[in-house]
């Protein structure tokens, strides 16, 4: 079995770019998952946290964290956003491994992500910290 990327990737390893454009169907699913009577009216725009979550899902897959035997804890999250994103608007995400250390057999990794629009303008950033336990080769 190939070792998951988290066991070999070094700091500054880059991920992506990923197309994290959110189509209408996924926006509807988000509203079903999160929405309620208190929710703001998004109209044809998205909650930016949804774009972050979409990028995170791809990152987790790229890091090999769905590999058998691994257990991943999402420990921390930072997000900043400059403007709203429209449903279907093209957004690209590029990740960079900001930290990756092993303590007591657990991997502690932080991935910083930059989100850009079709003009290449950065519209948001995020930073995700995860702890991975299990049989991670290192």
């Amino acid at each position: 079995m190939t070792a998951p990327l988290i066991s070999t990737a070094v700091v500054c390893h880059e991920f992506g770019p990923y197309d994290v454009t959110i189509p209408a169907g996924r926006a509807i699913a988000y509203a079903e998952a999160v929405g309620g009577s208190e929710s703001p009216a998004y109209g044809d725009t998205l909650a930016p946290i949804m774009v972050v979550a979409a990028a995170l899902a791809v990152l987790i897959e790229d890091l090999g964290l769905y590999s058998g035997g691994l257990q991943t804890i999402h420990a921390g999250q930072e997000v900043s956003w400059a403007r709203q994103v429209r449903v279907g608007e093209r957004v690209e995400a590029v990740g960079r491994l900001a930290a990756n250390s092993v303590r007591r057999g657990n991997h502690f990794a932080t991935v910083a992500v930059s989100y850009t629009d079709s003009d290449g303008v950065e519209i948001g950033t995020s930073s995700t910290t995860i702890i991975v336990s299990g049989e991670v080769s290192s």
Partner: protein
Amino acid sequence: MSSGSTQRAVGDALAGFERHVTQDRVDAYAEASGDHNPIHLDEAYAATTQFETRIAHGMLSLALVTEMLASEFPESWHKGGKLKVRFSAPVFPGEVVATYGEIISISETDEGTIATCSIGCKKPDGTDAVSGRATVLLE
């Protein structure tokens, strides 16, 4: 300190809300986010993990917190809002969680008047599932 034009003051509570986190919501969140990790979806698999049952995505709980922020600051949250949180405990499908927030400081910056809020989402037993801080430009 209060912010004159916005009538916001340190100590103001944000309008939190409760949400029943059902497995249907978790399933929908998997579709929305693309995160199909079986720990959220497959009870047989989840039974083999440290949690011994399915758990909701941490980002779902955080999404609820951002719903509160977007409702409270509809003009500015998505245009310059920032947050930093940690995930302290899993939310299990079937639990009712409650979002909360409070303005803990207001400061004048080159960008305008910025509020810093303590934010989070509590489990039924009162423990935090998510907690941290957010900053937002006051409207």
